[in-house]
């Protein structure tokens, strides 16, 4: 266990932060600008994972396991969410023959 921790600590914390911010931004941009709903879901996952990465990194640096516990939580929630999300995608594909998010413009009611 300690080797993993020390291995993590080999890389400075700033690098993790920069990486996860980059990943988060990529995910966010994807969510905002992609029209394919599957791509958007994937980008969401990307954002989750960037947060996970950061949590794991901090957890290692502060020797506090609760961060890693949260990572598991998030992974489980993300899995559930993907299940729901993908099923919505399937329904959408069946109903409107497309996965373009702009076709779902009736959410105002």
């Amino acid at each position, binding site marked *: 266990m300690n080797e993993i921790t020390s291995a993590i600590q080999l890389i400075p914390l700033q690098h993790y932060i920069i990486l996860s911010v980059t990943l988060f931004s990529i995910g966010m941009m994807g969510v905002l*600008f992609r029209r394919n709903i599957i791509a958007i879901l994937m980008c969401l996952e990307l954002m989750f994972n960037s947060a996970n990465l950061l949590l794991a990194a901090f957890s290692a640096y502060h020797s506090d396991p609760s961060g890693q516990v949260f990572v598991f939580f998030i992974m489980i929630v993300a899995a559930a969410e993907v299940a729901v999300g993908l099923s919505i995608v399937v329904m959408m594909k069946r109903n409107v023959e497309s996965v373009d998010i*702009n076709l779902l*413009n009736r*959410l105002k009611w």
Partner: protein
Amino acid sequence: MVNPIPYIDLAWLVPAFPLLGFLVTGLANKSLKHKQAGIIASAMVLLSFLVSLVLFFILRSSGQNEATITLFNWISIGGMNIPFAFLIDHLSLTMMLIVTGVGALIHIYSIGYMHDDERVNSFFAQMNLFTFSMLLLVMGANYLVLFIGWEGVGLCSYLLIGFWFKNPAYNYAARKAFVMNRIGDLGFILGIILLFITFKTVTFSEIFSQAAAFPVGAPVITLITILLLIGAVGKSAQIPLFTWLPDAMAGPTPVSALIHAATMVTAGIYMIARSSILYNLAPLTLNIIIVIGLATAIIAALIGLKQNDIKKVLAYSTVSQLGYMFLALGLGAYSAGVFHVTTHAFFKALLFLGAGSVIHAMGGEQDIRKMGGLRKKMPLTYFTFLAATLAISGIPPFSGFFSKDLILSKAFEHSVILYILALGGALITCFYMFRLLYLVFFGEQRLAGAHPHESPKVMTIPLIILAVLSVFGGFLNIPSLFNGDSKFSNYLHSAVVSKASEELSHSTEIGLILGSLLLLGLVIFFAYRTFVSKSMIPAKDGEPMSFFSKLIYNKFYIDEMYTAVFEKPFGYLSDFFYNKVENTVLDPVVDEIGFTTARVGSLLRKLQQGNMSFYLFAMVAGILLFIIFILIV
């Protein structure tokens, strides 16, 4: 405290009989035969006449001047205590006897006059209700009970003017009468309220005893008397509220005789005479009354010159005579005014009933241009009508002479100009009355196909009784000039405080009387020449006339003026309020508040396009802004 007078409590029977008659004929409307209704109604009024007579003698023998009979407390709150009470004194007894006496005769006459109308029962019910209200008016011991009767007679007048309700013109006339009366009533009730605020009571005796503390010309008394005067002007058809009375002739003729000649229209005079103590304190108001009375007397007489409807002539003559009564009141000669009320009740009721008899005989025709030559066909009607005409013209020794002469001599005492104007009015009166008489009863019959006949006994007997009263009624009040003792004036003295004035010397008075008699004779002669010798018939409608005749013929365009100044603008104002203020300002403002809310909503709705990308973008932008906000602050 005065001693109670035995049996005076019976006074409540006087109004109770007509009320009973109203309830019986009104509620059993359908089951009573026409004749029964007439007999019941007449009997009730006759009964109250008899009770009034009994009361007269009771009061006389008791040696007291007045008695108050309280039935119950009507309104009693805080400092306001208004009992439902009757006052029996010389003034109210006089009025009660006139109302019930003349009223009974007119009721009896109506049995004959109305016999073929299908709504006779309603007619008698309403006539009885009128008598009841009129009795409340003259018997009330305070202004508010007087006001009950005051409005009650207005209501009955409204009902009876519009008795033949199928005709919209009659309905309009009825409404006009009621509304004009109500304008007066508004002034009256405000006057009563001011009386209450000033004196903390509305009972006559209490007010009059307190009024002594006020100086002559006290502003509050002047205001009160003017407000009361407005009521009297409306009820007694004086300028400017007189135009309803001629229109009121739409009602059946007995109604015109009872309500619009003998009783109701004199209510204003009664009320002012009753309030004589207050009016004596308000010289300004008395002067206003003189002006109103004289102007009404002359203008109405002028209009009467050119009227061709038998009832309209009589209506304008009523207005004119009421003007004389007002003149007497304004001169402070209240008892002279009430005396003229009395004689006028006799001869004017007679004139109207005679006119009714003529109309009855002519099969409903009222245009005097189509009558003529009725003297031989209807001798009884002719002679009674003649008696009344002589009386109203003021020929001695008929009743009108005594009452009118009293007023004229009072006017002379006041000023010569007043006398000349009043005498001028009297001469005009004489002219149009003889014009009427000659056109109706002299010459040849002008309406082809009519078979006039004398009226049945049930109608002629009241005529004869009234004729006797018209001839001899004046002897009630023989002035000292003829060695009389002015019984009537003295009788009223306890209830009505006339202004003291210097008596004219007998020689002046004789001169005045002789002068005026000479002029009257000339006028009668002139009328005879015009309408009998030359047999001139008034022009048909639409024929060209001189400017002045046209002005008179069209009643000085006063009705048209009122329509243009009040009626039409009121309609416009109503339309303006409804279409402009209500429907384009007030209501839309409220609606606008609602619409604005809706509009803001639809503006904000644009943000909710349902576009997922936009929502996400907005979310991120929001978060970023939030972070920036936190970082900066």
